[in-house]
């Protein structure tokens, strides 16, 4: 039995119609009586009769065999100004045409939708999974509508039911819309277009007239991602910091992370973009994904003439807004993660290129020097660093040992390492004078290095095997360690890194190389090496080890292996966090 309730106040009628065509007439009569009791005029009764019949006919005619046992839902809500008919069907649904046209006169079918559209003020067909709802609305204004109960009247059952119906149908609308969008989500190419479309639908569902969606940039600004009209697409708003646009509604919502409601009486700050929509009411809604603030969604509509009081959006509409906003925010966050992933891939590729440049700089075979032995190691953290070493042989009995660390990583660092190596090799006349060579190199590279805020630390050691002495020059590099039977020296001749000042003056030092001496050139990756406890390998550990190597004469290769093992052992649990390069000479 149909339940009929409330004859004098906004009322609701709800019943289940068996899925049989011959039941439709009776249902139409029930609705007819109900609407008559609500005081609807003849015109409205006729229109609703016919529209309801057409809607029910379709719901029954197109029900698949499997749904025949399920009834068609009929709900009528009759308010003072408007009435609404909802028909819930279990058909496969169809796309409501954008324009419903009258078929040719000789056509025997196809007039149902046209009748519905013509008789009702609005018709919306909401498709869902397994069921669809046709929502028909008609204004009662032409027929001397009854007065609504005074504000503040206690909520009776009818209102409660109407409210619940509203709530359920709103949830249903947003859910079915989200189902639709979820299936599209994998093919979102243009986030702006997607946002615009989603928010246009949202506006229709919650009866908003315009919208602006802003997303966070740089933690201090919100920028328009999508707006219902281009005029609203106005630059960025600063919501945090000294120059913030305080007083702007959107800035307020972003700064306080709270929903800001506004109506036509709200005074807007001089440059608030929302001034473009005067006499509006609506809300600015802060959007989050988890704890992260993503942006603000503003929805508005014109204030009704005469300025009715009350809320612009009902609680259920606000829920729908929240659901959509949340969904959109997740899409945005996902899309950004995707972008980052691509950027990371590009960086990885760049490092790979830089790594191959760096490897190409290293000597395949170390040149040797009469009476001395050389060994070297260059281990790169990540794909690439700016470390490199080189050994030049200006003559049979001499060598220039080079070790350098280009600050920075990636292709640029590798390029500078390659340039430095080329410049050193192109200046053989200065190979025996490390300080003069560094001065020249600094002059040649200064503009390029300072242009990109990079610098290089380097150490050049000229070894004369016959005279058994070395000359060292340093550009802000780690000290040179020289050990012999008399003890160990740490040499740091003055000189700033290359690329800091155009006219740096470099000093040099000369030391004798007695028999059974050792020389160690290294980069700070050795002393900065860290263990699991966060302790550094440090200068002391290195010098201690180096001092002890004097105990017996050993080939350079042995020492190189021992130091490499010690370092590997030290950072067993932490791994390499910086390049480690060293060159050992014994003799």
């Amino acid at each position, binding site marked *: 039995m149909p339940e009929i309730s409330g004859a004098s106040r906004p009322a609701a009628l709800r019943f289940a119609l068996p899925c049989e065509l011959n039941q439709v*007439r009776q249902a139409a009569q029930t609705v007819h009586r109900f609407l008559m009791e609500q005081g609807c005029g003849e015109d409205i009764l006729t229109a609703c009769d016919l529209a309801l019949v057409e809607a029910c006919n379709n719901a029954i005619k197109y029900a698949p065999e499997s749904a025949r046992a399920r009834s068609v839902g009929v709900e009528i809500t009759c308010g003072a100004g408007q009435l609404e008919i909802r028909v819930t069907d279990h058909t496969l649904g169809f796309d409501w045409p954008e324009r419903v046209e009258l078929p040719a006169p000789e056509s*025997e079918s196809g007039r149902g939708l046209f009748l519905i559209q013509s008789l009702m003020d609005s018709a919306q067909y909401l498709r869902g999974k397994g069921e669809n709802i046709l929502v028909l609305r008609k204004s009662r204004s032409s027929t001397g509508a009854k007065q609504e109960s005074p504000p503040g009247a206690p909520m009776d059952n009818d209102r409660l039911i109407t409210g619940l119906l509203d709530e359920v149908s709103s949830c249903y609308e947003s859910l079915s819309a989200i189902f639709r969008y979820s299936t599209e989500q994998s093919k979102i190419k243009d986030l702006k277009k997607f946002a615009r479309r989603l928010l246009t639908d949202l506006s229709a569902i919650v009866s908003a007239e315009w919208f602006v969606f802003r997303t966070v940039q740089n933690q201090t600004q919100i920028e328009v991602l999508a707006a219902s009209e281009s005029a609203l697409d106005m630059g960025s708003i600063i919501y945090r910091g000294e120059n913030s646009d305080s007083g702007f509604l959107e800035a307020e919502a972003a700064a306080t992370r709270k929903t800001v409601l506004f109506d036509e009486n709200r005074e807007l700050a001089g440059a608030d973009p929302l001034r473009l929509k005067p006499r509006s009411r609506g809300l600015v809604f802060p959007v989050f994904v988890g704890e992260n603030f993503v942006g603000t969604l503003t929805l508005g509509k014109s204030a009704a003439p005469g300025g009715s009081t009350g809320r612009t959006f009902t609680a259920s509409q606000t829920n729908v807004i929240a659901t959509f906003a949340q969904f959109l925010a997740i899409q945005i966050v996902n899309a950004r993660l995707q972008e980052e992933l691509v950027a990371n891939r590009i960086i990885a590729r760049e490092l790979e290129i830089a790594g191959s440049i760096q490897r190409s700089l290293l000597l395949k075979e170390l040149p040797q020097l009469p009476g001395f032995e050389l060994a070297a190691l260059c281990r790169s953290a990540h794909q690439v660093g700016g470390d490199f070493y080189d050994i030049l042989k200006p003559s049979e009995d001499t060598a220039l040992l080079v070790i350098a660390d280009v600050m920075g990583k990636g292709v640029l660092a590798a390029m500078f390492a390659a340039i430095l190596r080329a410049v050193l090799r192109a200046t053989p006349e200065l190979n025996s004078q490390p300080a003069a060579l560094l001065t020249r190199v600094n002059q040649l590279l200064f503009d390029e290095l300072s242009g990109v805020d990079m610098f290089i630390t380097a150490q050049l050691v000229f070894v004369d095997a016959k005279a058994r002495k070395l000359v060292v020059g340093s550009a802000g590099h780690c000290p040179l360690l020289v050990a012999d039977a008399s003890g160990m020296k740490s040499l740091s001749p003055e000189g700033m890194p290359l690329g800091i000042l155009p006219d740096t003056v470099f000093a040099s030092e000369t030391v004798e190389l007695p028999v059974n001496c050792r020389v160690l050139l290294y980069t700070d990756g050795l002393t900065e090496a860290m263990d699991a406890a966060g302790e550094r390998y440090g200068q002391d550990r290195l010098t201690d080890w180096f001092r002890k190597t004097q105990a017996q004469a050993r080939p350079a290769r042995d020492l190189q292996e021992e130091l490499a093992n010690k370092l590997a052992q030290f950072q067993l649990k932490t791994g390499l966090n910086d390049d480690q390069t060293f060159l050992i000479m014994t003799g």
Partner: protein
Amino acid sequence: MKQQSDGDTLRVSAIAELTAANANAFRDETRQAFGPEQRNIEVDLSQTMAVDSCGLGALVALHKTTAARGGVLRLLNPLPPVQQLLELTRMHRIFEVIKE
């Protein structure tokens, strides 16, 4: 529903409704009663409380049946709601609508 032959015209009356529930039966029964010598069909709608788009479809079908024989379909005295429906769907220009 009553059917009555009057020369070259078949008269159908006492129709309570013309809707999805009975439109096809109405169409088929009327066609069966339409004698080979007849050309026109008159449908008395004075007692018809409800017509929907399916009912209209049946009337269009009968209109074609008569037109094939050079005759006409006449609708007699439709009630105001039915008249509105005919006008809304522009069918009043296709059928001959007679008010007595």
